[in-house]
């Protein structure tokens, strides 16, 4: 062990599937942005930086995350508070921190901090976990959810809540407690609808259930997205040939609706290929979680990969019309540095936790 040469911690399956996904992402982005080289180059830099970060993050022993999880959470919250006070306003929301030409969405950090902190908090608790532990966990989750939600950024807030709840669930939350909370949630839904949701969020949900009510207004996006995907057919219209995309009928092609671009230009085959890559990554994460060295690592890998999965599925369902529109990028494909960097960060942690083995049992 002391003779060991510096080893590079590395998971070839994840590395190559993420590499493939990112490469495809740049390729799709080129079409989605109407061949805007500036956008694609910038994204390329993000991807490159992402890989570097992922490799760097996966080198240290995962104990470092456990030990620093509290610090990470507090730092994330402070960072968020900072943007809230000083960040520029983009589309009516203060979500961004600008560093040179790059801007970073401050809430992204919480996606990592919350599951790691909760894993640390819960990993050594006796099963089943106790009521006050649940209470503290839920308090943290709700607090983080609420401040992001107030930005307002429903999409990220939901993902943060999911990430925390996944960890809570995986660490052994009792079924009866879950049943009770679900009932409570249903009972309080009118309150959520009327008090918590912003008017535009209510509008989105309303149009989701009745898309024909306003075809040129709120439901324009989802109608055009369906037309784009549907008109792609089995083989798609071809690279840069999608009329919905290239003639701007489809909104937000570079970000939230990039999946519709893929559907339009590469058809059902393209969708099948893309979903297979995602599925492969998820299965690999599942495998790594089951075989992780200890409870903390299991919880973190499970929490992070499920968060990634939730992010993916919410975006896909929204774009194909199964869920109301919430702002959420397609992981590894949509334009935008923050979510990409935080995803690579997350996968760096996953790789770190799955490759570092403990030689001595506790």
């Amino acid at each position, binding site marked *: 062990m002391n003779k060991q040469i510096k080893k590079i911690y590395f998971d070839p399956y994840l590395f190559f599937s993420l590499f493939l996904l990112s490469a495809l992402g740049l390729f799709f982005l080129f079409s989605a942005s109407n061949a805007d080289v500036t956008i694609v180059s910038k994204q390329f830099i993000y991807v490159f930086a992402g890989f570097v970060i992922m490799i760097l993050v996966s080198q240290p022993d995962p104990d470092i995350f456990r030990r620093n999880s509290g610090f990470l959470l507090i730092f994330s919250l402070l960072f968020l508070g900072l943007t809230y006070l000083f960040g520029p306003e983009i589309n009516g929301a203060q979500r961004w921190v600008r560093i040179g030409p790059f801007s970073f969405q401050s809430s992204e950090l919480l996606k990592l901090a919350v599951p790691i902190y909760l894993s640390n908090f819960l990993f050594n608790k*006796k*099963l089943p976990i106790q009521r006050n532990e649940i209470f503290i966990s839920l308090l943290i989750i709700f607090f983080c959810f609420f401040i992001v939600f107030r930005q307002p950024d429903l999409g990220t807030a939901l993902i943060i809540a999911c990430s925390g709840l*996944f960890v809570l*669930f*995986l*660490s*052994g939350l009792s079924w009866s407690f879950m049943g009770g909370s679900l009932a409570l949630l249903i009972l309080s839904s009118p309150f959520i609808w009327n008090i918590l949701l912003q008017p535009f969020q209510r509008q989105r949900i309303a149009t989701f259930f009745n898309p024909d009510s306003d075809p040129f207004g709120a439901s324009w996006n989802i109608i*055009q997205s*369906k*037309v*784009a*995907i*549907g*008109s*792609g*057919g*089995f083989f798609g219209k071809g690279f840069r040939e999608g*009329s*919905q995309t290239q*003639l*701007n*009928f489809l909104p937000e092609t570079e970000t939230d609706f990039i999946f519709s671009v893929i*559907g339009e230009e590469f*058809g*059902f085959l393209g*969708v*099948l290929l893309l*979903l297979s890559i*995602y*599925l492969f990554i*998820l299965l690999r994460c*599942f495998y790594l*979680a*089951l075989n992780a060295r200890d*409870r903390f690592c*299991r*919880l973190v890998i*499970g929490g992070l990969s*499920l968060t990634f*999965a*939730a992010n*993916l*599925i919410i975006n*896909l*369902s929204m774009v*194909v*019309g*199964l869920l109301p529109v919430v702002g959420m990028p397609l992981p590894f494909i949509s334009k935008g540095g923050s979510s990409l960097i935080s995803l690579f960060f997350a996968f760096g942690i996953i790789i770190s936790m799955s490759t570092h083995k403990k030689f001595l049992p*506790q």
Partner: protein
Amino acid sequence: MIFEERQIEKNNFSSRAIILFVIIILGLFAVLIQVFTLQISGYNDYQLAALKNKNYTVPVQALRGEIFDRNGKVLIKNEPTFDLITQPNLIDDIDSFLDEIQPVIFLSESDKLQYKKLQKGKAFANKELVLKKDLSPTEIARFNVRSFNFQNAFIAKRYRRISDYPNIFSHVLGYTSKTEDAYKSVPEIPRSHWRDAELVYAHGLIKGRTGLEETYDNHLRGSYGERVYEINAMGKLVQSLSITKPLKGSDLHTNLDLEAQKSAAKFLGNRRGAVVAIDLDSGGINVLYSSPTYSINQLSNGMNEDDFQILINDPDKPFFNRALKGRYPPASTIKPAIGMYGVSKNIVNWDFEIKDPGFFTLPETGRVFRGWRKGGHGKVNMHKAFLVSSNTYFFSLAYQADIKELSSYLTSLGFGQKVCLDCFDEDKALVPTPEWKYSIMNAGWVKGDTVNLGVGQGYLLATPMQLANYASLLAKKGAFNEPAIVKQEKVKKPLKIWQDNKFNDSDWNKLHQALLGVIESDYGTARSIRDLKKFQVAGKSGTAELVSLDSKEAYQEVRNSELLRDHSIIIVFGPMPNPKYAVSVVIENGESGGAVAGPVAIEVLKSLVNE
């Protein structure tokens, strides 16, 4: 112990992780099913929706057909004009562009204002905009030399509807004008796309409004082509995807005769009236002229409001087509019909003679109906009655007529109904019946009404078109063609036979002899026109009284007011003995039929037989 607890924890974790991953896989599967529904099951619908989003179809105007006379001379053609078209999306600074182009083509301040108002919208959508219409040759030359300075403008050929004889064919050819309902002709193209139609005519989407332009609009119009543009979500034209060329309208070959129409115009001059001439072989209408006229070129290509008001307010009513809509008492020109009726109903025969004292007294009331000549014509048989136009003879004949029989007899000769196959807005005029009189005047039919009918006065009204049709029926002895302006190309229509078994061939010959005598004999009422031509002509003149008077002296007073003077009417056919053409002429307030309308009829006839 510790190990056991860890194993429980691990199993617990595994089962929960499996649950969540299964949920996630189900989620992915749901997405895949939805994508399948959209892309495979719904493909046709969504593909159509995508096409509907991006394809923008605009109509492409077709050139209208041209109109020719019977000798192939063009009467209405498409004449090219040149417009300066710009592409506002390529112009950076509108003001400096206008300043630059100002010395090349003349622009008025209102031109500039109008242009500035429209250019923004057009630039946004990548559409073209006309800067100036109908460039002069100098402007074209100046622009062509400097065209390299104006990459954002070009000269395009547009057409105008032009006749070289704009004033003599006004009523028969008609004019075109801008139409707002062209979209109805191609229901596949949405109405809103029509404002982006690709134009061939400088005046936009046009259609026939009057005359042949209207009657044959479908034939002349051709069919619109379609150009499909690709547009983006903002409505900008991106590129042209395809074009279906328009189909040029068919030409119209008419029976009109340019020279004869010119004669009609020349000899009618600026008097109010109408001339109709018919080719007896085909029924083709060679001349259809109403005076006064207006310029169809001006009307088709934008007449200014003042000129238009002058035309509208002209007391001579130039827009009124007298040839088809003018209602005139046929006066003595009706006498052949009355004579034929008398013979066929055995009221008279050709030898029947009366003594004409110059007037007829209605036995029932003692009302006196006067002839045109004081003292009368002495002993008059039917032949002489035609020659000298004895009113007394026809008064007494009509006196014995049954009004219902007589009305239907006149109707069978084309009076009181539309006779032309393809005339624009023809009037039926009027054959009176007792029912008609009762419904209009709330008065019963009296014998005196029938007597008046005998000389074509009273309630009977006919159009010049009906008179010409009647003349052609007389000329062809009952076997005639329905009049039509446009050549009936396909099958030659069989002659229409007007049948009256009681009026046989020898009757026809006698009638022709009598009508020949009207012009060619020394006693004929229209003998004054005998020497105007080299061939022989048959006919009957008439002088339609507008006021009923007892004496010539009284009429002298009426004459002072021009609009109360008699209308001058004549029908002729010739050259005899095998007539080829029939002509009717009406000159409002022209007085004596033979002497005034006669020469016009003869000149038109001469043009037609090329003398």
